């Protein structure tokens, strides 16, 4: 009983900490905050690599975390439209409302791809502002890092110089790494892929990969048997190198198609993943390129 009471007290008593409370929606932004803020931030990440950022629910633990947050780092571009507005309304926390310094939307700072000409749900669950899966181009990360460090410095001026030096260190390492990835990417140019969802458009745009089809006939609509069958017919004469999916996507449609086309079913890390994937953003791109190179070498 005493143990239980202690446990309850531990759970209920506010955390006393001088660190900046940061709430990141997706793991990639959590990883960027870790790079730029280190121990200056007390970080909560809403979702894992195994959860679909479109489909999350505003569950109690997330309401509790947004209530404490001083900075919200999310993708924006309507990726979190189903749950973030609700969290913001429930949190009773003015500091992270839209328009305030504590409200940071990464997609505001990069150019979006696939901005729909026709905004209609018959086209699936499309995002009027464009494809929100922006983080798989390292140049986007670098651009967002500049803006995020600026924001961290503004919210936590006491550690301002620390954010500047961390940003500089990160950008030098990131630049060098990006050059390496781009060099490696040369050999991947034109690699033909099928993706489950339009989650890899920015990667394809960056490395000049050729995404020939998606398993979802329309974004967010689960792949139907009819669509898979028509894909099989369409792709059989000239199969792609692989069918690519995120860790959170249903593996069955990929497996169905790849078995019949006799090509790779590739689960790319998609984002930072503490369980069995890349531990940071550098490893994310390393692992992604390694996986694509493996597919590419097999093909040659």
């Amino acid at each position, binding site marked *: 009983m005493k143990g239980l009471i202690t446990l309850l007290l531990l759970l209920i008593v506010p955390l006393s900490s001088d660190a900046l409370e940061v709430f990141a929606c997706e793991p990639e932004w959590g990883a960027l905050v870790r790079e730029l803020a280190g121990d200056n931030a007390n970080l909560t990440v809403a979702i894992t690599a195994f*959860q679909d950022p479109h489909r999350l*629910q505003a569950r109690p633990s997330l309401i*509790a975390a947004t209530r404490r947050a001083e900075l919200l780092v999310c993708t924006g571009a309507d990726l979190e439209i*189903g749950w973030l507005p609700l969290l913001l309304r429930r949190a009773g*926390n003015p*500091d992270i409302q839209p328009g305030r310094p504590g409200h940071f939307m990464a997609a505001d700072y990069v150019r979006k791809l696939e901005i729909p000409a026709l905004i209609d749900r018959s086209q699936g669950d499309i995002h009027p502002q464009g494809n929100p899966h922006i983080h798989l181009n390292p140049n986007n990360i670098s651009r967002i890092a500049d803006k995020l460090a600026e924001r961290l410095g503004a919210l936590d001026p006491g550690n301002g110089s620390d954010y500047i030096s961390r940003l500089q260190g990160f950008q030098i390492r990131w630049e060098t790494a990006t050059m390496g990835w781009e060099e490696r990417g040369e050999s991947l140019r034109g690699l033909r892929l099928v993706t489950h969802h339009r989650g890899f458009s920015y990667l394809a745009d960056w490395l000049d990969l050729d995404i020939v089809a998606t398993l979802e006939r329309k974004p967010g609509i689960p792949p139907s048997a009819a669509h898979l069958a028509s894909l099989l017919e369409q792709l059989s004469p000239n199969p792609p190198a692989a069918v690519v999916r995120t860790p959170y996507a249903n593996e069955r449609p990929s497996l169905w198609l790849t078995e019949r086309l006799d090509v790779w079913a590739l689960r790319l890390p998609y984002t930072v993943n503490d369980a069995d994937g890349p531990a940071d953003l550098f490893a994310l791109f390393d692992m992604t390129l390694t996986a694509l190179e493996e597919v590419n070498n097999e093909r040659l």
Partner: protein
Amino acid sequence: MLALILLSTGTLHAQGLSGEVADLRQMLLEMKNDYESRIAGLESRLDRAERSARSASRSADDAVEIAEQTAIDLTAGASSPNTYNPAIGVVLVARYANVGPGWEDIPGFIPGGDLGPGSSGLSLGESELNLNANIDSRFFGNITFALGDEDGETEIALEEAWIQTTSLSNGLTLLGGRYFSGIGYLNKFHIHADDFADRPLPYQAFLGGQYIADGLQLRWIAPTPLFLEVGAELNWGSNFPSTSNSATSPDLWTLFSHVGGDIGLSHSWQLGLSYLSADVVDRGGEDVGAPPAEVFTGDSDITGLDFVWKWAPDGNSTVQNFKFQGEYFSRDERGVFAGLPYDGDQDGWYLQGIWQFRQGWRIGYRHDEVDADNGPLFSGTILEDPGRSSARDSFIIEWSASEFSRLRMQFIDDRVLDESDSQILLQYIMSIGAHGAHEF
């Protein structure tokens, strides 16, 4: 001696030679170091030059991209004079029912609102129109109209009309207007968001299906890692279980609290406790089709306990997930009914489980029942003790093409009346417009 001298000069000479070699070696080493550092310097300059060329080309790219993006944003802004329009959402609901005798009140309870399974045949039910937006930097506003069809006439009801603060700090939120009370678990949801076509019996018996309050609500969320919410309401209005039509003073107040959290990645839970206290004036009578004298005046207090537990493998609910929820309500009423002293106790509960077994497909089961203990005085009136509990068992199967559409089939074994009734409901629930919220 000579030999000795020769030897020593030889040694000296040799020593001199080896000194020169050492000097030369030293010089070489210095030159090498010098060149190495120069080469390193040149390399790093080259590197820097390359990098700045790259970043220059990238900033050029950026500039172009940002210019393009700005152009896009500008055209978007310029071409839409309706930028400030609120989010508009419409929910379309209709059903086909096959119901036996049906019922409009539960034995032993004074009914509030439209209860029961409704009538057989095709009906539109209530379609909804919702508008919401931030009013300014401090307030958020929301209004919902329910559009129903009553005997060929379109009825418009004001279902919700509330404003709430977004700028109070310390976890406080103040809400006012007409709103769904925060008591229990299910009450705050629109009925079309439920997992079953109708509310469970305790909601129908104690809250008229849904307690829509007119008043004020204050909620506070604790600054803790564990979710802890406390709320209180002060309500006026005429919606059941409130009976006051006068706006002079509140006749109903509530207190509620929820705690919740995660267990690992796959489990989330929430537990709630609620209390509602109403000053009831003349409930029943002609309003519910009973003799005019059969009215209750007095205190009505409801205590509620609710829990919900959700599971999804690794928290990924896309393909499979499971939701288990239950609520218990107990009501204590004291006062006067039909001129006689009345002290009634009623309670009710439901338990339900919903399993999404593959993407787009869900099945579920619910048991709900209520029980009235009103004492022996009231036989022949609407409060007559039925001597048994009213219960139902319901099964659903649902298919969703996307999160915006839902087709549902519900089978009910209804034992509210003495004779049990098998009912079938077919229902569609479709939403268009603004993206709905994924509430827990």
